[in-house]
């Protein structure tokens, strides 16, 4: 466990935040809670300490696993599976899917501590899996783009996969 060196009042607040997050299930299993019971968009369960942001898709050179079938049928859901990197205080949130023509943007979100937050977090790396369905109405050469960030550096990241829609 890494403890930030903060003033006493911050430390007391951090302990209270940790206890509250434990009571709220912050130490649940490492599997992604996203698929079945995502946190509501913009949910902030630690009194403003967490913010909703695009999920980490790449961590120190290791990229997310994105699985997209090479072919799909128009009007039928296409299952897209992907992994995101989380941590001790980083929790899975919802995944947004937006399809315009033959381009589908899939944006997974996480709840992560705000910069400067006094939260106490365990130093662990979680690999969380999500499954979402994408629906193309048109036939042709389509593209699925998974949008998130690369860490460190907070670089914007896009993982692309081609799909033939018949």
């Amino acid at each position, binding site marked *: 466990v890494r403890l930030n060196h903060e003033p006493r009042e911050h430390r007391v607040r951090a302990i209270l935040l940790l206890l509250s997050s434990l009571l709220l299930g912050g130490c649940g299993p490492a599997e992604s809670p996203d698929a079945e019971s995502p946190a509501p968009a913009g949910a902030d369960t630690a009194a403003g300490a967490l913010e909703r942001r695009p999920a980490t898709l790449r961590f120190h050179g290791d990229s997310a696993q994105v699985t997209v079938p090479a072919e799909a049928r128009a009007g039928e859901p296409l299952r897209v599976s992907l992994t995101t990197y989380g941590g001790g205080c980083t929790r899975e949130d919802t995944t947004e899917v937006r399809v315009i023509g033959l381009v589908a943007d899939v944006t997974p979100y996480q709840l992560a501590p705000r910069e400067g937050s006094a939260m106490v977090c365990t130093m662990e790396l979680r690999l969380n899996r999500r499954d979402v369905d994408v629906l193309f109405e048109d036939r042709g050469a389509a593209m699925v783009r998974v949008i998130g960030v*690369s860490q460190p*550096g907070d670089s*914007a*990241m896009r993982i*692309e996969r081609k799909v033939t829609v018949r």
Partner: protein
Amino acid sequence: VADTLTESPDVHRWELTGHRVTQLSVDSSSVRLLSWSLHASLDVRIAAPFVLVQADGERRAIDPVASEEVAPLLTLVGRGMGSLVVTRSGTLELGFGEGTTLECGPSRRRDAFQVQGGGALEGVAYAAGDHGTAPWSG
């Protein structure tokens, strides 16, 4: 503004922001371009023949083992480094300010190119593979 990575099974494309060539090194078999700042660093070493395409379209073929050919690279020092594109087939393309690009094709030469990031670009690592292996791991 952070950098942007677009990754597909065949291409990794980095759009870089705020990076500048701060050092050029030449040795008997390679050239090395370094972009360094307090925020991030990017180290590119090339040991295979490549082409420097100037903004006016002029193409200069350069072999790092022929050190007398590398003089045009001096103009890159201080220039912005705007893009880095690596393909599965083993090509490297660097984009600099004012339309200058450096293109390194697949080569049989050992360690044809290596790219290593630091700081905010830690984890950026590419190395020309042997016989068709991708320049990235995973």
